[in-house]
């Protein structure tokens, strides 16, 4: 057993140059005979080496689409991606499919929610890890094998020699997720995108995986984008938190100020609707009313207004702009006791 107390004072990566810089990323889906649907709207954020950036939000907030857009994994047809995603000054959105394939796995690794469907069911685990090494590092199968074994060991898979020859279905959920992480890390990517990596796992396994990710970020100075709906995971892991709603950033802040003093009513609503392990259990929860189906269009209002307890008339008539003050960004006309955003004109955005 290991009893861990995460270091309170982590190395502050904020001074470093951003490794990945997303600017004004917009993803629009267009289906035949239907109006275009803007899944991600003008999203910008930076990720630095050794930094963990969280994208938080509920279903439909655009967090997974963001990760797919960064990875170039959106389908070729039916969508348009604008803005820029720069990795070391190189815009990923302008790369060809082949260039992106070379980049994925070597410079950027990705971990998905469902490890079983992300692994090839008819290829042994070991082979799947060595394939990545062969593909990106040009290793021979023979020389890749000990590296694969080492990777499996590193992510905490016991008895890696045996596991190398096993198929995904023979592994438990936690082991599969570890195998997937081993694959993502095989080529020591500088950037790791984790899309709900622990959602399908049990809490005790989740704790193991999160501890593993934390360790990797610190040891290998990897930049990590953590996509999740679980505020608890964010509170423990992320340095910077981006709260998304309806495809747009509504609030950004470092985790301590954000969790202690949420400015956006949506962030506040999320925090107050989660039952806690401490405090009075009999106390009634304070849910956010409605669901994302009640959203207003961002183009002429604040999408969250119908569900918002703080909404004023202006929220339904104008679009609030995202305003930065220090490390925090907020998009709200009537925040929880704070500075309001000005209205956003269409010209500002273009």
């Amino acid at each position, binding site marked *: *057993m*290991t*009893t*861990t*107390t*995460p270091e*309170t004072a982590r190395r502050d990566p904020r001074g470093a140059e951003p490794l990945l810089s997303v600017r004004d990323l917009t993803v629009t889906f267009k289906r035949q005979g239907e109006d275009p649907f803007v899944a991600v709207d003008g999203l910008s954020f930076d990720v630095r080496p050794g930094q963990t950036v969280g994208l938080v939000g*509920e*279903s439909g907030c655009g967090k997974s689409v963001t990760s797919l857009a960064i990875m170039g994994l959106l389908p070729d047809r039916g969508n348009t991606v604008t803005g820029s995603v720069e990795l070391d000054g190189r815009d990923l959105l302008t790369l060809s499919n082949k260039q992106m394939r070379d980049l994925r796995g070597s410079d950027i690794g990705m971990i998905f929610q469902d490890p079983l469907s992300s692994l090839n*069911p008819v290829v042994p685990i070991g082979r799947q890890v060595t394939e990545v090494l062969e593909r990106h590092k040009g290793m021979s199968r023979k020389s890749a094998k000990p590296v694969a074994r080492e990777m499996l060991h590193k992510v905490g898979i*016991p008895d890696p020699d*045996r596991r190398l020859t096993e*198929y995904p*279905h*023979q592994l*438990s*959920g*936690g*082991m599969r997720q570890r195998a997937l992480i081993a694959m993502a890390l095989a080529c020591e990517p500088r950037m790791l995108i984790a899309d709900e990596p622990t959602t399908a796992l*049990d*809490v*005790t*396994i*989740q*704790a*193991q995986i*999160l*501890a593993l990710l934390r360790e990797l970020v610190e040891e290998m100075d990897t930049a990590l984008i953590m996509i999740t*709906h*679980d*505020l*608890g*995971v*964010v*509170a*423990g892991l992320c340095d910077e938190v981006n709260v998304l709603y309806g495809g747009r950033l509504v609030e950004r802040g470092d*985790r*301590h100020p954000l*969790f*202690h003093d949420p400015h956006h009513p949506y962030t506040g*609503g*999320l*925090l107050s*609707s*989660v*039952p*806690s*392990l*401490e405090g009075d*259990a009999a106390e*009634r*929860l*304070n*849910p*956010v*009313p409605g*669901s*994302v*189906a009640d959203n207003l269009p961002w183009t002429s209002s604040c999408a969250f207004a119908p*569900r918002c307890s703080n909404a004023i008339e202006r929220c339904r008539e104008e679009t609030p702009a995202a305003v930065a003050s220090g490390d925090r960004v907020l998009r709200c006309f009537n925040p929880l006791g704070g500075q309001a955003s000005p209205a956003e004109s269409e010209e500002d955005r273009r």
Partner: protein
Amino acid sequence: MSTAATEPASDRAKGDRTRGDKGEVLVDVQDLKVHFPIKRGIIFDKVVGHVYAVDGVDLQIRRGETYGLVGESGCGKSTLGRAILHLEESTEGTVTFDGQSLTDLGGEDLRKRRRDLQMVFQDPMGSLDPRQSVESLLVEGMKAHGIVGDAEAAMPRLKQLLSDVGLPAAALKKYPHEFSGGQRQRIGIARALSVDPELIVADEPVSALDVSVQAQVINLLADLQEEYGLTYLVIAHDLAVVRHISDRVGVMYLGGIVEESDAADLYANPLHPYTRALLSAVPVPDPDVEDTREQILLSGDLPSPANPPSGCRFHTRCPWRQESRCDDERPQLRLVEIDGTTGSHKVACHYAEQIASGEIQPHDVETQTEDKPKELREAEGDEVADDIPFT
């Protein structure tokens, strides 16, 4: 409002469905076992082993309370819930509901009895027939139990049901795919309420919902309990949710209950090593708590329920494991008296007192790789292969 007011008077007046006192035992589960055979064979299936999904559970649920059952996936909590409802055949043991043994009931008697025991499902979309309108979904149960003759007569009650779960009457003519997840779950709850049950088994009622919507449904369940005097068995993996809605909580591990107590007591004084680990692993949306707390990281995974460890089921991962006794002797769920706990705290651990007092200290666990018999492993492989659709 009392239940009787919404119920057709004739039905209630018969007296066979009058409710007993709050606090008496409504559901009594004795030594319940559900074992699924693992079959293999080319022509004739041969049983090569069993999955011990539920393996000897004693459980009492009192009228009017909410019993929370927590555990990780594969611990058998869902199977236990279904076995209590007799939706899953039990291998051994008895389930007594309101003084009547459900295990002996069959056929038409069982079908009629189902009126008193309802279920709310995890996946609100999958649990609603996509081809039925909300109206016909809600009327179906009432018709099956002769509560209403036709849809016309049911209308006032349908509207009442919908308003109980916070939906407008306009929802009646709609179909499940036209609702949001939270609204669908409300319909699922309304369907369970439609036959006026006493016990509702809610299997992960909020885990498929968005965070902001979860709280709506949790509040709704609490309101309905108050209004209709319902008894709940809530099955969930989310410890915070269970703490919030339960009066008593049982923790399950590999087919057995390892600890049971009042909710507040259990969360304040977890005695079983597994409960401690589980509680320490839950991420809390508070960075200060996250930064400072001690996590007990369990090594390894849940062993396969097809091949559970001998002795204490948890000994393979337990940081407090002691030589031989933990490996050999399966601890029974027993009442313990330790300072600070209530008198009804039960735990299935040989050394609960010594661990609580600090007499036994945690140590590192050698990660054990699970060695299943070869046949079993192959059998499990087959199960996966069978899932590949026939083309």
